[in-house]
């Protein structure tokens, strides 16, 4: 439940809530396009992920789901009910070893079965880094196509959760976008989570799917109940505008939407907000078209600014749209620090920082 509208509450209550428990954004639900299916039901992001895996396993008898604690339902309950439905040979706990989970997952995929490998926290994906970047990403390339692990999808939780500190809040996507051969995807809500996860599982390339953990319960909307997929490498314009383009992904999309609304109300500035969705390979063309229209770009992500994926977008866009730009490409991101505990409200690129970024960009 979003506790963000504390402006409506009395002073003392506002103060108390502002200290702990209040998320730094309001989730903005999206209405799923008709082509994803007419029948819908209310799902939160966790249920949407569960639903996607249920469908994946129902339609693909080779699909197996494994990782730490997935058998009883998972620490975030994303795999609830799946072991009972599909059996313990298809949904099972592995020992506590991320490099093992990733390596094992690659081998399952190489043997032709679909592997859904769960990494409990993205913060703990690093022991699996060698397997993911040196092996999974390069499997097809290095073997001349004789072997590949396209049937591997790694799911990992991601992003700020309010109290996660250094090791339960990280957004590690940029560690992987520097490695050609894997796909990296981040959904902003339940509908995207379901459609994008199904695409990742069914895509013939190894993919890492980061699930914003703060959205698991907090993000709920009407989600199509059927089997639908959202294409990879396609960005989505979530809010149209003509003065400034903001590109973001995951939880931060909602922060940017709120900042865009504020910018409209307080500055009369029309902001276009784009959800990148697939971070690698990213939909450069979509962003280019938007920036050619607006002439101004801000990239916003929770991950630290330096060498975050915003840096790649900034470099590519200034290359492609130099003469269209009215201001430098701005990045409103986490500071270049590890993710702190009590200072989280100061660390995050909040609505106010993004708003300020918009203001500075239009006034350049």
């Amino acid at each position: 439940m979003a506790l963000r509208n504390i402006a409506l509450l009395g002073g003392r209550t506002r103060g108390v809530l502002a200290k702990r428990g209040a998320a730094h954004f309001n989730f903005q639900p999206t209405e799923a396009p008709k082509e994803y299916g007419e029948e819908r039901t209310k799902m939160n992001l966790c249920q949407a992920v569960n639903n996607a895996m249920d469908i994946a396993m129902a339609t693909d008898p080779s699909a197996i789901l494994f990782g730490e604690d997935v058998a009883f339902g998972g620490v975030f309950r994303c795999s609830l009910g799946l072991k009972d439905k599909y059996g313990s040979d298809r949904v099972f706990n592995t020992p506590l070893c991320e490099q093992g989970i990733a390596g094992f997952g690659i081998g399952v995929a190489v043997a032709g079965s679909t592997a859904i490998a769960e990494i409990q926290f993205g913060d703990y994906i690093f022991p699996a880094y060698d397997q993911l970047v040196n092996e999974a990403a390069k499997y097809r390339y290095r073997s001349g196509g004789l072997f590949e692990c396209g049937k591997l999808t790694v799911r990992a939780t991601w992003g700020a959760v309010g109290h996660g500190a250094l090791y339960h809040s990280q957004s590690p996507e940029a560690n992987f976008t520097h490695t050609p051969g894997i796909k990296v995807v981040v959904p902003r809500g339940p509908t995207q989570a379901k459609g994008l996860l199904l695409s990742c599982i069914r895509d013939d390339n190894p993919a890492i799917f980061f699930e914003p953990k703060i959205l698991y319960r907090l993000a709920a909307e009407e989600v199509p109940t059927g089997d639908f997929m959202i294409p990879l490498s396609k960005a989505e314009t979530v809010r149209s505008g003509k003065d400034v383009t903001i590109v973001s992904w995951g939880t931060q999309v909602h922060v940017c939407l709120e900042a865009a609304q504020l910018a409209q109300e307080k500055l009369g500035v029309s902001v276009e907000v784009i959800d990148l969705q697939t971070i690698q390979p990213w939909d450069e063309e979509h962003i280019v078209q938007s920036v050619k229209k607006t002439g101004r770009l801000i990239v916003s992500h929770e991950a630290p600014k330096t060498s975050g994926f915003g840096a790649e977008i900034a470099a590519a866009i200034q290359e492609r749209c130099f003469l269209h730009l009215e201001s430098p490409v701005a990045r409103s991101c986490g500071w270049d620090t590890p993710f702190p505990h009590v200072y989280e409200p100061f660390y995050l690129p909040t609505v106010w920082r993004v708003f300020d970024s918009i203001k500075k960009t239009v006034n350049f």
Partner: protein
Amino acid sequence: MLHIAKGRGLARIFSRRFATAQDRDDFRLQEYSQKYLGYRKAAFTEKLELIDSSKMAAVPIYRVTDGLGNFIDESQDPNFGKEKSVRIYETMTQLNIMDRILYDSQRQGRISFYMTNFGEEGNHVGSAAALESQDLVYGQYREVGVLMWRGFPLEQFMHQCYGNSMDIGKGKQMPVHYGSKEHNFVTISSPLTTQLPQAVGSAYAFKRQPNNDRVVCVYFGDGAASEGDAHAAFNFAATLDCPIIFFCRNNGYAISTPTSEQYAGDGIAGKGPGYGLHTIRVDGNDLFAVYNATREARRVALTNKAVIIEAMTYRLGHHSTSDDSTAYRSAEEVQTWGDKDHPIERFKSYLLRKGWWSDEREKEWQKEVRTKVLKAFGDAEKTKLAHYHELFEGVYDELPIILKKQRAELDEHLAEYGDRYPIDRCLKKD
């Protein structure tokens, strides 16, 4: 602490509070045995004693023949028959000859890099002969004999070393990074030990197939066994009951690092029981022993129990063409090993005793193989590389937009600066 057991009366309260020491011990031993210790017999001891593994005997080394190649216990003879025995010998010697020629060719600057298999021909061919062709093999880099046994053509070894347009690996990797889908041999990669957990995953996938008749056999060295991926793999294989054989070639060295600096325990076999793996250590230069052990391991693995084999052997050659092992070991040590324990010599004595081989045949065969190898080598050397556009292929299943653009950028660059690049080593676009 007094529990009020609702509706169960006082008997229960009393039994929990006043359970005897015996009851408490029995409860704990049963829990430990069943839930913590895999149903192993659990017992308490009042004797304070640290296990000192250095005082324990090493896992014994299974062998079939003695150092001269004579059977010790005839019942262990796998009875290959003439055809198989000759094929085994020919494979080992062909490997040896190919290695010598390719090693020299690197010294002459004709290929960029090479790794030989000297001294390990027995553990390669012995294990390969015990597997079935449908079994999936993952290797490290020093298992050429396995691939050769499976029928990978001589020309293909050469093409891969040259990375030319006939290389089924498409010229992407350094020499000796072979792979063949047809021969169920997963393409080699340089990072060590990464293949171990992957092999476990593949084994798990096979296990799920109805009427599975495939095991996975994954090869690795004594040095590779130190990587975390080995620990991960052993643990997963045992806990998930995978049909896998872990085959460790313990050849005494990891580049310059001797085994005395690689581990302090009882080698790699010593780790097996610790993970719950069925374990055997074998004389890696005794082809019969390697064969028998692998055959039995395969039988066990097919019952979905993971097995580890540690083959004791000796790396007669340098680590690679980038290494000169005289820098860390004496020529005398190498010579002595070669004299006192060579897998080819031991097996040859068996062939000669059986009357299935002769010195004359040896001369003929050596000449035959040399000619074949040199021809394949010459052909590979003359074959052009694939068109340089191949460098962009295979990153994903389909060429992404960004690579289409980068490829076009390279083309544009070559249109102007092409004479600075080895374009004529590549095929032209047709």
